[in-house]
C-alpha cells in the first residue's frame, strides 16, 4: 500500500551491521532534500533555511549531521497557522491535524496526510498473526478526539482485514476530574466507558483484537471478572497497549492476573513519533520492556540530561530524544517528556532502543513534600 517507507524499514532490518546506519543516513539525505527544496518543502523549514545561514541540503549528509539544527523547540508546534507545516509537494491533499498534550494551554499539533496509516502498517508487521488474526475485528478502547490514535487503530484493523469498534475516553476531562477531586464523577465516567466496551464485546461481533490503555485494561478485566468471565473468554486474543504506566511490574501483573492467556504487547508512541514496538517481553527477561523506534521514519536516542547532544552509554539513564523523518513531517532533535535507559540493538531491531521509559524527572518532580 505504501511501499517506500516499508521498504526502507525492511532494508534497514536486514543485511550487514552497517546497513541500518547506511539506510538511515540515506533516508536523512532524502528527507532533508525534500523538506528544504523550495518546490516540495513546508513554509516553516524553508523560512528556517533562509535565516539559518547554511543550506541543510548541502551540509546534512548523515543522521549525525542533524545536530546542526540544535534542539527542536516545543513551542514551534504550538499555535498556528498550522499550514506552515504542510509540504508544498502535498498541497491539495486532504490534511489531518493531530494534537498532543493540551491539558492546559495550546496543544502541540502535527499535520498528516498518510503518515499515521504508514506508521500503523509498519507496526502491523510486528504483530503475530496467531494472536492478532487477519480478518478479525478490533476494539479501540481509549482516547480519540484530537489524537491520531483512533484513526490509526481503525486503519490498522482495516489494513489487517477487520473492522474497528471504537469507545472514546477523553483524557483531558479525566485530568480535570482528578484535579477537581470529583472522585464520583471519575468513577462514573470510567464505568460509562467500560459499560460500552463490555456491550460491544458481548454483542457477537467476534472482536479478537484490542487497543487500550493500561488503566482501562485493568478496569475492563476487573469488570469482566466480576461478571464471571475474563478478557480471553470474552474473545480477545491479542492486545496492544502503551503509556508510561506500562512498567515491567504492570506488564507482569497483567499477564499473571488480568489477561487469562491473551497476548499483549507494549508500545511507546505519540502523535509526533509514530509507534515504537517492543522486543519480546515476558518471564524470560523479568518482563523488561525495550522499545525500538520505527527507523528510519523515527529515531529514538537516549541522551545526557545536561548535554542532549551526547548519547549515554548502554544501560545508562538519559532523556529520550526523538527525531521524526518523514516526507510529511521533519522534526530533528525533539526532547521528549520521558527518560529511560539506552539499550543495544536486538535481532529484530538492529538499532538502539530504550527501556524503563518513565516521565522525565525534571517535569515529574513532586511538589507535595513534608506533609503527613
Amino acid at each position, binding site marked *: 500500500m505504501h511501499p517506500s517507507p516499508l521498504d526502507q524499514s525492511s532494508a534497514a532490518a536486514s543485511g550487514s551491521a552497517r546497513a541500518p546506519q547506511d539506510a538511515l543516513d540515506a533516508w536523512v539525505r532524502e528527507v532533508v532534500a525534500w523538506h528544504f527544496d523550495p518546490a516540495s518543502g513546508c513554509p516553516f523549514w524553508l523560512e528556517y533555511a533562509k535565516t539559518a545561514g547554511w543550506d541543510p541540503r548541502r551540509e546534512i549528509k548523515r543522521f549525525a549531521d542533524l545536530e546542526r539544527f540544535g534542539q527542536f523547540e516545543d513551542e514551534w508546534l504550538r499555535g498556528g497557522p498550522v499550514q506552515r507545516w504542510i509540504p508544498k509537494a502535498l498541497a491539495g491533499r486532504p490534511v489531518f491535524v493531530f494534537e498532543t498534550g493540551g491539558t492546559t494551554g495550546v496543544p502541540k499539533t502535527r499535520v498528516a496526510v498518510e503518515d499515521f496509516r504508514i506508521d500503523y502498517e509498519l507496526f502491523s508487521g510486528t504483530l503475530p498473526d496467531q494472536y492478532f488474526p487477519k480478518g478479525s475485528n478490533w476494539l479501540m478502547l481509549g482516547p480519540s478526539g484530537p489524537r491520531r490514535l483512533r484513526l490509526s487503530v481503525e486503519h490498522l484493523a482495516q489494513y489487517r482485514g477487520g473492522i474497528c469498534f471504537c469507545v472514546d475516553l477523553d483524557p483531558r476531562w479525566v485530568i480535570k476530574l482528578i484535579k477537581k*477531586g470529583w*472522585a464520583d464523577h471519575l*468513577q462514573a465516567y470510567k464505568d460509562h466507558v467500560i459499560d460500552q466496551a463490555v456491550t460491544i464485546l458481548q454483542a457477537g461481533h467476534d472482536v479478537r483484537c484490542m487497543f487500550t490503555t493500561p488503566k482501562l485494561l*485493568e478496569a475492563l478485566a*476487573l469488570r469482566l*471478572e*466480576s461478571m464471571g468471565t475474563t478478557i480471553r473468554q470474552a474473545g480477545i486474543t491479542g492486545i496492544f497497549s502503551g503509556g508510561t504506566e506500562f*512498567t*515491567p*511490574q*504492570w506488564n*507482569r*501483573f*497483567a499477564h499473571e*492476573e*488480568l489477561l487469562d492467556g491473551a497476548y499483549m504487547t507494549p508500545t511507546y508512541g505519540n502523535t509526533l513519533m509514530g509507534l515504537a514496538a517492543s522486543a519480546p517481553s515476558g518471564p524470560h527477561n*523479568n*518482563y523488561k520492556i525495550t522499545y525500538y523506534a520505527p527507523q528510519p521514519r523515527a529515531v529514538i536516542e537516549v541522551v545526557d540530561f545536561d548535554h542532549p547532544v551526547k548519547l549515554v552509554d548502554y544501560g545508562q539513564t538519559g532523556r529520550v530524544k526523538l527525531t521524526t523523518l518523514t516526507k510529511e513531517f521533519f522534526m530533528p532533535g525533539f526532547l521528549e517528556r520521558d527518560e529511560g535507559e539506552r539499550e543495544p540493538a536486538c535481532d529484530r531491531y538492529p538499532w538502539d532502543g530504550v527501556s524503563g521509559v518513565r516521565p522525565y524527572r525534571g517535569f515529574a518532580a513532586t511538589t*507535595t*513534600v*513534608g*506533609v*503527613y
Partner: protein
Amino acid sequence: MLHLPVLRWGQPYTSIDVDQVVHFATGEPIAKVSRANGGLIQRDIRKAQRARDVLREIPIDELIARAGAAGELYMNATLPMGDGTQTPDEFVRAQSATTGLPERMCRANMKKNAFVLAEMRRILASLTRGLAFDVLSSGHGEERGVPISFQAQSPVVGLVLPSNSPGVHTLWLPVIPLQVGLVLKPGPQEPWTPYRMTEAFCQAGVPREAISIYPGEGDVGAAVLDSCGRNLIFGGTATVDRYRGNPRVQAHGPGFSKILLGDDQVDRWEQYLDVMVDSVFLNSGRSCINCSGIWASRHTREIADAMARRLAEVRPLPPDHPDASLAAFTVPGVADSISQAIDADVQAPGVTDVTAKYRDGARVVKQGRADYLLPTVVHCASPDAAIAKKEYMFPFVTIVECPEAKMLDEIGPTLVCSAVTCKPEFRRSLLDAIHIDRLNLGPVPTTQLNWLQPHEGNLIDFLFRARAFQTAEL
C-alpha cells in the same frame, strides 16, 4: 539488606519494582521495599469480605486478648521483618534511621502503641459506650429491653499512613479487635510499624488473611481509598479539604491545636509555662496534637520571650543520644522552604520572630543529608497576621494577642484546645464551640491524651452504623 514484600492478605508478593529506604543522614540503604501497583489492590479487594469473615470466627473478647499479646510481642520479641528479623532495638534504630526521629521518641511511640494494645478492652468499652461486643459481631442484640443493631460499613479499613509520626498508628490498632480487616499503605520512610505490628498480631493468633500491606506511590494510596468502604488518610490541609464530607474517608491533617489563656488566669501565665512548652515541644512538634498557637489578651510578649528562651536551648543531637529531642527533615528542601515561608511572614507589621535574638545563626541547621529546624516562637500583635494560624512540622508556635471575647471567633478549626480559665461563661462558650474537637479545661498539655476518648471522631461511629432492627416470630 532486608526486603519487605507486598503482603496480599498475608501472602508475600515480591514486586519487580523495588524502592530503597535509606538512612536520613548518610543515605545508606536500610531496606528494599516491594512497590505495589494500583491494580493489585483493586483485584485483592474482591476478597476483602474474607478478612472480616475470618476475624468474625474469633470472638471480640478473644481478639482483645490477642491484641494484648500482640502488644507484648511488639514491645519485646524478635519478630520477622520481611525476609529477615528485627529485635525491638533494631526496630527502633531502623525507624529512627529512616524517619529522622530520635531513637528515644521512637521508643516513646512504641510505648504508646503497646499501651493501646494492652488497654484495648477499656478503650473499646469506652468507644462503644459499654455496648456488648457480640452485638458488633452478630450485628444485632438488645439493650435495656430495646432491640439494637450495628452494621459494619466495610469489611476492611484502608489506611494511607504517614512517615513522620509513628504515634498515629494508635488510631488503627482497635480495628482488628473489632473484627474488621486492614489494608495498609505505609508511609514511604516508615514501613516498619505496619510490618512489625502485622507480625505481632499474626504471632498472637490473628489470621494472616485479615491484613494486607501495599507499599507504593500515589497511585497505591488512591487505589486503597478507591477500594475500601472506610478509610483513614493522613495528609496536609489540602488532603483534609479534599476529603471533607466524604463519608468513606476520615482525613487526619494538621491539628492547629491551641492553648487559650482566659483573662482570669493570664496574669499567672508563668505557672503554665511548662504546660505551654511541653505542648509545643514534645515529639519534636510533629503531632497534630502539638500546640501551634497560644492566645491571650495580655502578657503575650512576656510569654513569647519566656518560651523563646526555653526553646532556644534546643539543639540537634545524634539520633541515638539519650537527650535528642529534635527530629530531622528527611526530604531535601522542605526545611529551607518552611524557614523561608516563616521569614516572609515575619516581615508583616506586628509580627516578630522572638527566637531570633536567642539563636546563634540560622533557623535551619544542616547536618549531612539531613536538615533541622530550630524551635521558633513568633509573636503576633493581632490575630490578623497571616502567620497567626499556621502550623509547621517542628516546634513552632505563635503567641497571639487577642481579646478573650474575640478568641473563639478568631482561632479557626482547632483539634485540641486547652483553655485555662475558670470563667463559667467562657467555659460555656468553649464547650459549645463546634470548631474545637478535643477540649481540655484547665492547664492540660495539648499532647496529653486520654486514650479512652475518641480522637477526631469516634472510630466505632465511623466503622459501624446504628440502625433500626426488628424481628418477628416465624
